[in-house]
């Protein structure tokens, strides 16, 4: 379980996040939706431990990992995993080395490669893979560490329609198998609807509304949420 309590982040006297409070259940997928600059990615970096919240606290699995301007537990000790928006694959490592770096060993590496359909590509580097295969490597690396929670930062933002469909199917399967708390950041409400149990809408660093898509549609809290739902069509 991930729990944020009154998290604010300020940088260069500019408030990027303002008093954000929510929790993600043990097997829940929560989508954070909002336009560019709304603070979605900063929120992920706070959860990961790369940014300390100026105010508020973050708990993971009941342990306080960040508190009032301090990172209490360092990123590598939080046992989280993330699929980065730009994938962040290491150009000098093969697919297998990516997984090994993330602590997957021997049979587990092979199992993961089979699972994401990359068994025949284990010795290739990112430059030798297609766009879809790179996405799969990033997902496999994230799962390799057997994380306590998974964070996805716009995982489908740079893929075409066909690949998006394929990756959504793969993500659904993997998330159903793993039963992890998942934080999915996206600016696309359709993507959120396809993968998430609940949606948190952010605007200008504030959490505007949180609930299921149906709840949001039934009682949009602001005009911004209304507009977002209207855009979804």
């Amino acid at each position, binding site marked *: 379980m991930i729990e944020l309590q009154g998290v604010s982040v300020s940088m260069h006297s500019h408030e990027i996040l303002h008093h954000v409070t929510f929790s993600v259940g043990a097997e829940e997928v929560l989508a954070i939706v909002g336009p560019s600059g709304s603070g979605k990615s900063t929120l992920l970096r706070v959860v990961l431990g790369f940014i300390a919240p100026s105010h508020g606290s973050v708990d993971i699995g009941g342990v306080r990992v960040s508190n009032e301007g301090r990172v209490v537990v360092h990123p*590598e000790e939080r046992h989280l995993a*993330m699929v980065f928006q730009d994938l962040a694959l*290491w150009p000098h490592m093969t697919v297998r080395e990516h997984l090994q770096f993330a602590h997957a060993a021997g049979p587990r590496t092979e199992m993961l490669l089979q699972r994401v359909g990359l068994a025949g590509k284990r010795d290739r580097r990112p430059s030798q893979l297609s766009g879809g295969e790179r996405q799969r490597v990033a997902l496999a690396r994230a799962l390799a560490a057997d994380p306590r929670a998974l964070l996805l930062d716009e995982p489908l933002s740079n893929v075409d329609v066909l690949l998006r469909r394929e990756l959504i199917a793969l993500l659904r399967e993997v998330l159903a198998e793993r039963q992890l708390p998942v934080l999915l950041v996206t600016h696309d409400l359709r993507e959120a609807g396809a993968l998430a149990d609940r949606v948190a809408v952010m605007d200008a660093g504030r959490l505007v509304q949180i609930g299921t898509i149906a709840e949001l549609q039934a009682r949009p809290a602001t005009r911004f949420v209304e507009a977002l739902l209207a855009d979804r069509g």
Partner: protein
Amino acid sequence: MGRALKRAEEHLALAGAGFVICATALLPLVAVVAGAPLSGFAPLASASPWLLLLRSCALAAAVTACALLLGVPLGMLLGRANIPGKRAALLLHALPAFLPPFLLALGWFYLPHPDALFSSVGAIGVETFAFAPIVTALVALAVQAIDPSMEEAGRLSAPPWKVAVRIVLPVAWPAAALGALLVFALSLSELGVPMFLRIRAYPAAVFSRLGAIDYSPGEAAVLAMPLIAVALALLAVERSIGAGRSFAVLGLRSEERAALNLGRFRWTATVICWAAAVASVLPIAGLARMALRGGFAQIGDWLGAGIGNSVVPAALAATLLTAVGLILGRSMARGRPGSGWFDALAVFAFVTPAAVLGVGIIDVWNRPATHAVYRTVAILVIGFAARYAVIPARAIAVAIAQGSPHLEEAAAVQGAGFFLRLRRIVVPLHGRALLGAWLLAFVFCLRDLETVILFYPPGSAPLTVRILTLEANGAPPVVAALSLVQCGMVAAAIAAGAVALAGARR
């Protein structure tokens, strides 16, 4: 006709830039290769020149290895780690790279020193501190340019030291390899340090055939041939390092990110970084110590026109090279056909030991028909342009590659020709980069000794040449004071450039 000319503007500009590189660098290199067989290969028939070449290559390899050992960790620490005062430490450490290395040898000599200073070990030590900042700076830039998410992806499952070793270092390795190549080329080319420390070196053997009692320009051309082979090998290595890499990837991203936290190793690393920085500038303290023994009182008698002889050709060459670099760098950044060849030629001229270029420049320009050039400051400008064209061209290419080509294309669809786009879009957008490139070229020309010592016109000796020639017989306090003037010129140029760059940023 007008439209055709407008369409051809870009090609004509690149051809013009290529012409400057060919006339200044290719012509002398061709002259060396073409002229050597006419003199016969007798000077290379014995084992002694080959052994000397081997010795010089071994010395350059040792300097390169030491520069990597010092420069890679320093570059990583000063580029990314939470070292207090890391900018100041980097600046102090980098300063010797902008000085002629033999001034550093002089500085060490004026400090209490072991006898080993006058040995190969001493030369390796002096040149390591002179050239390691090149590796440090390139590695520091490279680690700053790495996509932050690559590091963060690693940090989710590994501590900072493991991320530094397994991810940051391998990704930055091409920059370190490029630095190693430059250090090897500069060390092999170095003339002043071996001459001052009485170490036998191959370039000095070539030099002695042109400027000493065993005068024999034909033999010099023959002796230069193996150095051309070495330079070709260096060019091949440089091409393989850079193959397939875009200038944008090699470039400078200014994305803010938190410094890598070294935890309990922070203070140990800080002491190491600052010790290296202070050791780098110790020779300048040695020069000051000697100069204070009355050197400044006599300096007026010895300085002559040394400052003007250094500054004027350096400024002229830097201006020419920045103009050439703007055209060539932009073409390289945009992948224009032909630009790669001119770039390769400029790299080749830079990695070719300066003695070879000197022999060729004398051969091409020391003729009755071209004495109007050869006996004036113009020959110094040609020499600088031949050797240093690659520096501003690469700097400008990196800067332009960071920007979107659409900015220029938007002007092109409005009907703007190449020169108009250059004037109204490229130059205003990249003003700071152009200023930085000019400054870099200026400082390299200012520090040069080994290129111009072979052909400087009578009465036009730059200050570096004046110091080296005076060092043999002059009073040490005067030599030290003149050396400090050289340091002061470089420091003033860097400071003025920093102020101008800060102004341009605003």
